Protein backbone atom coordinates (compact mmCIF):
# COMPACT_ATOMS: atom_id res chain seq x y z
CA UNK A 1 0.00 0.00 0.00
CA UNK A 2 1.35 3.39 -0.91
CA UNK A 3 2.48 5.56 1.95
CA UNK A 4 0.02 8.37 1.38
CA UNK A 5 -2.89 5.91 1.47
CA UNK A 6 -1.54 4.57 4.76
CA UNK A 7 -1.30 8.14 6.10
CA UNK A 8 -4.86 8.84 5.07
CA UNK A 9 -6.15 5.72 6.82
CA UNK A 10 -4.19 6.59 9.95
CA UNK A 11 -5.64 10.11 10.03
CA UNK A 12 -9.18 8.91 9.43
CA UNK A 13 -8.82 6.27 12.17
CA UNK A 14 -7.81 9.06 14.56
CA UNK A 15 -10.76 11.19 13.43
CA UNK A 16 -13.32 8.40 13.74
CA UNK A 17 -12.16 7.06 17.10
CA UNK A 18 -11.62 10.42 18.76
CA UNK A 19 -14.96 11.85 17.59
CA UNK A 20 -16.80 8.86 19.09
CA UNK A 21 -14.81 9.26 22.30
CA UNK A 22 -15.64 12.98 22.44
CA UNK A 23 -19.35 12.33 22.59
CA UNK A 24 -19.30 9.32 24.89
CA UNK A 25 -16.70 10.01 27.55
CA UNK A 26 -17.76 10.77 31.10
CA UNK A 27 -15.12 13.31 32.03
CA UNK A 28 -15.36 16.73 30.51
CA UNK A 29 -11.65 17.53 30.24
CA UNK A 30 -11.02 14.32 28.33
CA UNK A 31 -13.75 15.32 25.88
CA UNK A 32 -11.88 18.57 25.21
CA UNK A 33 -8.65 16.64 24.66
CA UNK A 34 -10.28 14.24 22.18
CA UNK A 35 -11.71 17.24 20.34
CA UNK A 36 -8.17 18.60 20.09
CA UNK A 37 -7.01 15.29 18.57
CA UNK A 38 -9.80 15.45 15.98
CA UNK A 39 -8.89 19.02 15.02
CA UNK A 40 -5.17 18.25 14.68
CA UNK A 41 -5.96 15.20 12.52
CA UNK A 42 -8.14 17.42 10.30
CA UNK A 43 -5.25 19.85 9.93
CA UNK A 44 -3.06 16.88 8.99
CA UNK A 45 -5.57 16.02 6.28
CA UNK A 46 -5.42 19.57 4.94
CA UNK A 47 -1.64 19.27 4.74
CA UNK A 48 -2.11 16.09 2.72
CA UNK A 49 -4.19 17.85 0.05
CA UNK A 50 -1.60 20.64 -0.27
CA UNK A 51 -3.74 23.37 1.29
CA UNK A 52 -1.10 24.59 3.69
CA UNK A 53 -2.72 27.95 4.43
CA UNK A 54 -5.99 26.26 5.39
CA UNK A 55 -4.11 23.81 7.62
CA UNK A 56 -2.26 26.65 9.31
CA UNK A 57 -5.49 28.56 9.92
CA UNK A 58 -7.08 25.38 11.31
CA UNK A 59 -4.21 24.82 13.74
CA UNK A 60 -3.99 28.42 14.92
CA UNK A 61 -7.70 29.21 15.21
CA UNK A 62 -9.30 25.89 16.05
CA UNK A 63 -6.68 23.92 17.92
CA UNK A 64 -4.96 26.91 19.43
CA UNK A 65 -7.93 29.20 19.96
CA UNK A 66 -11.28 27.51 20.34
CA UNK A 67 -10.06 24.48 22.29
CA UNK A 68 -8.14 26.76 24.68
CA UNK A 69 -11.32 28.81 25.08
CA UNK A 70 -13.32 25.68 25.82
CA UNK A 71 -10.80 24.51 28.43
CA UNK A 72 -10.90 27.94 30.08
CA UNK A 73 -14.65 27.82 30.30
CA UNK A 74 -14.52 24.27 31.71
CA UNK A 75 -12.20 25.48 34.46
CA UNK A 76 -14.42 28.47 35.17
CA UNK A 77 -17.75 26.71 35.34
CA UNK A 78 -17.33 23.25 36.74
CA UNK A 79 -15.08 21.19 38.87
CA UNK A 80 -12.27 19.77 36.78
CA UNK A 81 -12.90 16.15 37.78
CA UNK A 82 -16.60 16.50 37.23
CA UNK A 83 -18.13 13.30 35.89
CA UNK A 84 -21.27 13.25 33.84
CA UNK A 85 -24.38 11.37 34.73
CA UNK A 86 -25.32 8.86 32.08
CA UNK A 87 -28.03 10.13 29.75
CA UNK A 88 -31.41 8.54 30.14
CA UNK A 89 -32.26 5.65 27.86
CA UNK A 90 -34.78 7.34 25.60
CA UNK A 91 -32.44 10.20 24.78
CA UNK A 92 -29.57 7.79 24.10
CA UNK A 93 -31.78 5.66 21.84
CA UNK A 94 -33.00 8.68 19.89
CA UNK A 95 -29.49 10.02 19.47
CA UNK A 96 -28.05 6.74 18.23
CA UNK A 97 -31.02 6.24 15.91
CA UNK A 98 -30.63 9.68 14.35
CA UNK A 99 -26.87 9.30 14.05
CA UNK A 100 -26.83 5.86 12.51
CA UNK A 101 -29.82 6.52 10.27
CA UNK A 102 -28.34 9.71 8.92
CA UNK A 103 -24.94 8.12 8.42
CA UNK A 104 -26.46 5.19 6.50
CA UNK A 105 -28.47 7.55 4.31
CA UNK A 106 -25.42 9.72 3.57
CA UNK A 107 -23.24 6.71 2.78
CA UNK A 108 -25.79 5.34 0.34
CA UNK A 109 -26.10 8.72 -1.36
CA UNK A 110 -22.30 9.11 -1.57
CA UNK A 111 -21.75 5.67 -3.04
CA UNK A 112 -24.47 6.02 -5.63
CA UNK A 113 -23.47 9.41 -7.04
CA UNK A 114 -21.08 9.57 -9.98
CA UNK A 115 -18.48 12.22 -9.18
CA UNK A 116 -16.99 13.68 -12.39
CA UNK A 117 -13.93 15.87 -12.02
CA UNK A 118 -13.61 18.86 -14.28
CA UNK A 119 -11.26 18.81 -17.26
CA UNK A 120 -9.60 22.19 -16.58
CA UNK A 121 -5.98 22.15 -15.44
CA UNK A 122 -5.32 22.58 -11.75
CA UNK A 123 -3.99 25.90 -10.48
CA UNK A 124 -1.23 26.15 -7.96
CA UNK A 125 -2.48 27.13 -4.53
CA UNK A 126 0.18 29.39 -3.09
CA UNK A 127 -0.05 32.53 -1.01
CA UNK A 128 0.00 34.76 -4.08
CA UNK A 129 -3.11 33.13 -5.54
CA UNK A 130 -4.90 33.16 -2.20
CA UNK A 131 -4.04 36.80 -1.53
CA UNK A 132 -5.08 37.97 -4.99
CA UNK A 133 -8.42 36.24 -4.71
CA UNK A 134 -9.11 37.17 -1.11
CA UNK A 135 -8.78 40.88 -1.80
CA UNK A 136 -9.86 40.83 -5.43
CA UNK A 137 -12.88 42.71 -6.69
CA UNK A 138 -13.65 41.03 -10.01
CA UNK A 139 -15.05 37.59 -10.60
CA UNK A 140 -13.99 35.17 -7.84
CA UNK A 141 -13.06 38.10 -5.66
CA UNK A 142 -13.78 37.82 -1.97
CA UNK A 143 -13.24 41.34 -0.68
CA UNK A 144 -16.90 41.82 0.33
CA UNK A 145 -17.11 38.75 2.63
CA UNK A 146 -13.68 39.71 3.95
CA UNK A 147 -14.93 43.13 5.09
CA UNK A 148 -18.21 41.76 6.39
CA UNK A 149 -16.48 39.10 8.48
CA UNK A 150 -14.24 41.72 10.05
CA UNK A 151 -17.35 43.62 11.16
CA UNK A 152 -18.81 40.33 12.43
CA UNK A 153 -15.69 39.59 14.47
CA UNK A 154 -15.77 43.08 15.97
CA UNK A 155 -19.43 42.65 16.92
CA UNK A 156 -18.77 39.21 18.41
CA UNK A 157 -15.86 40.55 20.45
CA UNK A 158 -17.88 43.46 21.86
CA UNK A 159 -20.88 41.23 22.50
CA UNK A 160 -18.86 38.58 24.32
CA UNK A 161 -17.25 41.19 26.57
CA UNK A 162 -20.58 42.82 27.45
CA UNK A 163 -22.34 39.50 28.10
CA UNK A 164 -19.64 38.04 30.32
CA UNK A 165 -19.04 41.21 32.28
CA UNK A 166 -19.54 41.01 36.02
CA UNK A 167 -21.89 43.32 37.84
CA UNK A 168 -25.03 45.09 36.77
Amino acid at each position, binding site marked *: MALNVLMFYLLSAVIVICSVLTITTTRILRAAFYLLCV*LVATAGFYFM*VDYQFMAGVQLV*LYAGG*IVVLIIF*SILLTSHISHKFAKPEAIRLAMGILVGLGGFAL*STIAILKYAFTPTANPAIK*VDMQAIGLQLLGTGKNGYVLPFEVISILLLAAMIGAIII*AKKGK
Partner: protein
Amino acid sequence: MLEGIPITHVLIVSAFMFFAGVCGFIIRRNMITILMSIELILNAVNINLVVFNKYLFPDQLQGHFFALFVVGIAAAEASVAIALIINIYRRLSSISVDKVNEMKY
Protein backbone atom coordinates in the same frame (compact mmCIF):
# COMPACT_ATOMS: atom_id res chain seq x y z
CA MET B 1 -0.44 13.19 -2.89
CA LEU B 2 -3.94 12.08 -3.73
CA GLU B 3 -3.42 9.03 -5.92
CA GLY B 4 -5.15 5.97 -4.57
CA ILE B 5 -7.61 7.78 -2.27
CA PRO B 6 -11.03 7.89 -3.94
CA ILE B 7 -13.28 10.78 -3.07
CA THR B 8 -15.95 8.55 -1.53
CA HIS B 9 -13.65 7.40 1.26
CA VAL B 10 -12.99 10.94 2.40
CA LEU B 11 -16.67 11.85 2.18
CA ILE B 12 -17.64 8.85 4.29
CA VAL B 13 -15.14 9.88 6.99
CA SER B 14 -16.52 13.41 7.08
CA ALA B 15 -20.12 12.11 7.13
CA PHE B 16 -19.22 9.97 10.13
CA MET B 17 -17.77 12.97 11.93
CA PHE B 18 -20.86 15.02 11.09
CA PHE B 19 -23.28 12.46 12.49
CA ALA B 20 -21.09 11.90 15.54
CA GLY B 21 -21.54 15.61 16.20
CA VAL B 22 -25.30 15.40 15.68
CA CYS B 23 -25.53 12.40 18.01
CA GLY B 24 -23.46 14.15 20.68
CA PHE B 25 -25.66 17.24 20.37
CA ILE B 26 -28.74 15.13 21.16
CA ILE B 27 -27.24 12.96 23.89
CA ARG B 28 -25.34 15.46 25.96
CA ARG B 29 -26.77 17.55 28.78
CA ASN B 30 -23.79 19.78 29.50
CA MET B 31 -23.66 23.01 27.53
CA ILE B 32 -19.94 22.90 26.87
CA THR B 33 -20.05 19.41 25.38
CA ILE B 34 -22.94 20.52 23.19
CA LEU B 35 -20.63 23.28 21.95
CA MET B 36 -17.93 20.68 21.27
CA SER B 37 -20.41 18.67 19.18
CA ILE B 38 -21.20 21.80 17.17
CA GLU B 39 -17.47 22.20 16.47
CA LEU B 40 -17.37 18.61 15.23
CA ILE B 41 -20.23 19.35 12.82
CA LEU B 42 -18.51 22.48 11.49
CA ASN B 43 -15.23 20.64 10.98
CA ALA B 44 -16.92 17.87 9.04
CA VAL B 45 -18.48 20.44 6.73
CA ASN B 46 -15.06 22.05 6.24
CA ILE B 47 -13.50 18.76 5.20
CA ASN B 48 -16.33 18.28 2.71
CA LEU B 49 -15.83 21.71 1.17
CA VAL B 50 -12.05 21.32 0.85
CA VAL B 51 -12.34 17.83 -0.64
CA PHE B 52 -14.89 18.91 -3.24
CA ASN B 53 -12.64 21.77 -4.23
CA LYS B 54 -9.52 19.62 -4.50
CA TYR B 55 -10.98 16.62 -6.30
CA LEU B 56 -13.73 18.00 -8.51
CA PHE B 57 -12.74 21.61 -9.22
CA PRO B 58 -8.96 21.99 -8.92
CA ASP B 59 -8.94 25.10 -11.12
CA GLN B 60 -10.91 27.23 -8.65
CA LEU B 61 -10.61 28.09 -4.97
CA GLN B 62 -14.22 28.58 -3.94
CA GLY B 63 -14.40 25.68 -1.50
CA HIS B 64 -11.15 26.80 0.09
CA PHE B 65 -12.48 30.29 0.77
CA PHE B 66 -15.84 29.02 1.97
CA ALA B 67 -14.04 26.80 4.49
CA LEU B 68 -11.89 29.75 5.58
CA PHE B 69 -14.91 31.88 6.33
CA VAL B 70 -16.59 28.98 8.14
CA VAL B 71 -13.58 28.78 10.48
CA GLY B 72 -13.81 32.52 11.17
CA ILE B 73 -17.51 32.41 11.90
CA ALA B 74 -17.08 29.34 14.13
CA ALA B 75 -14.52 31.21 16.21
CA ALA B 76 -16.86 34.18 16.66
CA GLU B 77 -19.81 31.95 17.51
CA ALA B 78 -17.83 29.89 20.03
CA SER B 79 -16.72 32.99 21.89
CA VAL B 80 -20.24 34.40 22.17
CA ALA B 81 -21.58 30.99 23.24
CA ILE B 82 -19.00 30.70 26.01
CA ALA B 83 -19.80 34.22 27.21
CA LEU B 84 -23.45 33.18 27.46
CA ILE B 85 -22.53 29.95 29.28
CA ILE B 86 -20.48 31.88 31.84
CA ASN B 87 -23.37 34.28 32.39
CA ILE B 88 -25.81 31.38 32.87
CA TYR B 89 -23.41 29.74 35.31
CA ARG B 90 -23.31 32.89 37.40
CA ARG B 91 -27.07 32.93 37.74
CA LEU B 92 -27.91 29.24 38.10
CA SER B 93 -24.64 27.66 39.33
CA SER B 94 -25.10 24.86 36.85
CA ILE B 95 -24.42 24.29 33.19
CA SER B 96 -26.95 21.57 32.57
CA VAL B 97 -29.44 22.42 29.86
CA ASP B 98 -32.23 20.91 31.95
CA LYS B 99 -31.95 23.74 34.47
CA VAL B 100 -32.41 26.55 31.94
CA ASN B 101 -36.18 26.42 31.75
CA GLU B 102 -37.44 29.83 32.86
CA MET B 103 -37.65 33.07 30.96
CA LYS B 104 -37.00 36.21 33.00
CA TYR B 105 -40.20 38.21 33.38
